[in-house]
């Protein structure tokens, strides 16, 4: 929910995630470790499963920091090349740098590759599995059956103000949060309209969707599991192809469904020894990637340099880092300039 809201807000001009400490100005550490490492430590404290602990450790050990430093170094280099052509046009610098824009594009696609990787949040907060479908499809029964079979870590009971139920579970060692949109069905018309919108937002933000309705009414989602529910009823004994026939009453198909959910959930988790980004980090990297794309597409070298400055400051916000002096250092250590 928070994620989908943030995603929606993030697309609006002028809005972005607040920097950590932007409001409180209580900042991370005193220069001995940087922000990415501090986050790794915080995760370590919260870590509950083995794979969580490993991801947290990898982060804390500065693997990500090294990666970010390498990107910073490369953006600095690109900046230095642009600045060389601008400030030293007359003093041994080249009039232009023909490879600059393709080098910007190359780094952009590398950052994009990282953005496509599994994130740390599913590992930390659990993979969001949303059970959706029309009223009376058997969502709550299914949820109860799953929760009954697997160990529930915490159980949130539906309250009068809740419009959905969240059940955090450890499903074969994979942390998931099972969400039921059940509370929507008895709502009044006006509220129901809001409820439908919310449930659409939940589906959109879901990592895995378990769909209990008609197969052709299923929402579009990259990880969709179609369930033919109430398979214990004689007229529903056989489900359509591609759907798993499940009965919350008899337990039929439940093992297969759980295996499918676990498999899909695992695919959105970072591999045990891989570095993973969190939302804040991904936000900055996405910003940097956007600026690099801009740098690759404009022709005025001044604007290339401006986009690179933005890319630099986006990456710098990840670690708290470089300024103009670093660009100049890069400039003068690599090129012979000046009359």
């Amino acid at each position, binding site marked *: 929910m928070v994620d989908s809201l943030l995603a929606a807000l993030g697309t609006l001009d002028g809005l972005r995630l607040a920097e950590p400490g932007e409001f409180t100005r*209580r*900042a*991370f550490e005193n220069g001995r470790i940087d922000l990415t490492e501090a986050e790794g430590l915080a995760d370590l404290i919260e870590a509950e499963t083995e794979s969580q602990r490993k991801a947290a450790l990898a982060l804390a050990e500065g693997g990500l920091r090294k990666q970010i430093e390498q990107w910073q170094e490369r953006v600095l280099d690109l900046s230095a090349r642009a600045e060389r052509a601008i400030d030293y046009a007359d003093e041994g610098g080249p009039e232009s740098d023909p490879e600059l824009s393709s080098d910007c594009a190359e780094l952009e696609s590398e950052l994009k590759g990282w953005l496509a990787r599994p994130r740390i949040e599913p590992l930390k907060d659990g993979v969001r599995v949303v059970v959706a479908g029309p009223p009376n499809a058997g969502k709550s029964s299914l949820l109860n059956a799953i929760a009954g079979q697997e160990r529930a870590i915490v159980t949130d009971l539906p309250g009068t103000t809740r419009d959905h139920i969240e059940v955090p579970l450890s499903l074969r060692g994979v942390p998931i949060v099972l969400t039921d949109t059940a509370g929507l069905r008895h709502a009044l018309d006006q509220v129901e309209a809001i409820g439908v919108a919310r449930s659409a937002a939940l589906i959109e933000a879901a990592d895995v969707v378990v769909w209990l309705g008609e197969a052709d009414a299923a929402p579009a989602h990259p990880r969709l599991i179609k369930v033919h529910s109430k398979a214990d009823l004689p007229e529903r004994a056989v489900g359509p192809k591609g759907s798993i026939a499940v009965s919350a009453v008899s337990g039929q198909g439940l093992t297969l469904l759980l295996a499918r959910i676990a498999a899909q959930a695992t695919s959105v988790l970072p591999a045990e020894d891989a570095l993973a980004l969190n939302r804040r980090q991904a936000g900055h990297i996405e910003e940097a990637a956007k600026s690099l794309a801009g740098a690759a597409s404009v022709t*005025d070298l001044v604007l290339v340099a401006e986009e690179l400055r933005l890319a630099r400051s986006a990456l710098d916000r990840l670690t708290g880092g470089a300024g103009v002096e670093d*660009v100049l250092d890069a400039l003068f250590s690599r090129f012979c300039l*000046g009359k």
Partner: protein
Amino acid sequence: MFDVLVIGAGHAGCEAAAAAARRGARVGLLTFRPEDAGQMSCNPSIGGVGKGHLVRELDVFDGLMARAADRSAIHRRMLNRSKGPAVWGPRVQADRKLYRTAVGQLLRENRVEIVIAEALSLVIRNGAVVGVETSEGALPCGAVVIATGTFLDARMFIGEQVIEGGRRGERASFALAEQVRQIGLGQGRLKTGTPPRLDARTVDWAGLEEQPSDLGDWAMSALDDGVRLPQLRCAITRTSARTHEIIRANFDRSPLFAGAIEGRGPRYCPSIEDKVKRFADRDGHQIFLEPEGLDDLLVYPNGISTSLPADVQQDFVRSIAGLERVDIVRPGYAVEYEFVDPRRLGGTLEVRDLRGLFLAGQINGTTGYEEAAAQGLAAGLNAAARALDLPEVRFDRRTSYIGVMIDDLTLQGVSEPYRMMTARAEYRLSLRADNATTRLGSAALAANCVSDRRRRQIESHFECRTSAGWADSEEGRADALYEPYVQRQQREWDAVQRDARVWIPTDLDYASIPGLSNEMVERLEAVRPETLDQAARVHGVTPAALSALYVAASRRAAA
């Protein structure tokens, strides 16, 4: 009695004196030799990328440099013309003598009084400067601008030869250097250099690539004084493998590598021996042959500044195409000089703990005429403010390169001579050479430091901006080109502004702030930032330290 005394008649000193006079101060300009006022002691050019921006900004305040450059220009080039207008850099080569003459005239027009004397010491009473002790007696005054350039305890190096003095054939200021050190302003030594001067008659011009002057009719100043001189050509040549061999074979005779020079030189204006050493794989370095004047036989070979011995200079110069039979009129040399830590200065260039003392130019660790002149303007305007109780004039990073420079100097300090580059300005897209009047016109009028002619020019420029044809003007088109980017920067700026409103008390005891590490206390103590925004830009200051500082400052403000 003088209101303002300016020590040194270089580019910083002349601008400072004239600026203070334009605000109504009675100004005395102290110099060893009056004929040297406005002397171009290094390359005979004014402007360039970043530097040209500074000159245009100076011009809005009725500074001398742009008009003197126009009156003496013998070669013009708009650098970076193939790139966006934000980084076009107007640059002229000036006839050395005509430039000096023009500066002399402008000083007289500004009613600056020349005082031929050596400044020996400052007269300080109750933590404020009240006069200058000179070789001709004591001169009381309300404020002093020190603009002694490289002359503070200066030494020149030509190979193994060491000469005391700030420039060829001229004296240095030793007495004043001693006092500056006593006041605790001395920071360290820096180094700069100059190439040998060549006899134009012995250059083989025919075989060299020519660089003609621009055809376009642009000028440095927005006020046209109507001077049009004949335009000369420059030529371009390169060092050869043989040149590098000669230089390499004589590394041990260079004071730079033998350890005689301790001061750090600018990385962006390296000596030829530096270039050969650091970039050994390069087979040649470009040299611009620039005539020094219309009736001057000297040529300035831009690109081969050196402190090698005179005989080595002769050898290596003759290994360069077109210079095979060249005669050196004066050998190049390196000069090492004392500078002060500009972090001791406030945004008006006044020494923080010595009221009435302003420093401008190379003494603050900068290099270049334009950088010096721009500081001279700021120091002069504010020295007049101090002496006559007028409002201060502060320059902002967002609206001027002058602001970028002063902010960089007073906050970051220098570790090598500071040169203006457009890369230093984060608001580069807004700070163009073509929109200086738009950016600074109102500030210049408010400072009450311009002539009637300038006032009319500024006012008519503002009128022009509201006219129908504005969108088609060069400046109007550039505005439109950068508009989306400038808007994005506006958001960045808003965050800065928020922090700039948090003033840090000048007497804040950093050591007493809870949660501030010793390292942070030291870094902040050295700079004493005026606002939270400035503190954020102090090198190495962490967000944690900033928040602690923010809390301390807010608590004080609330108390």
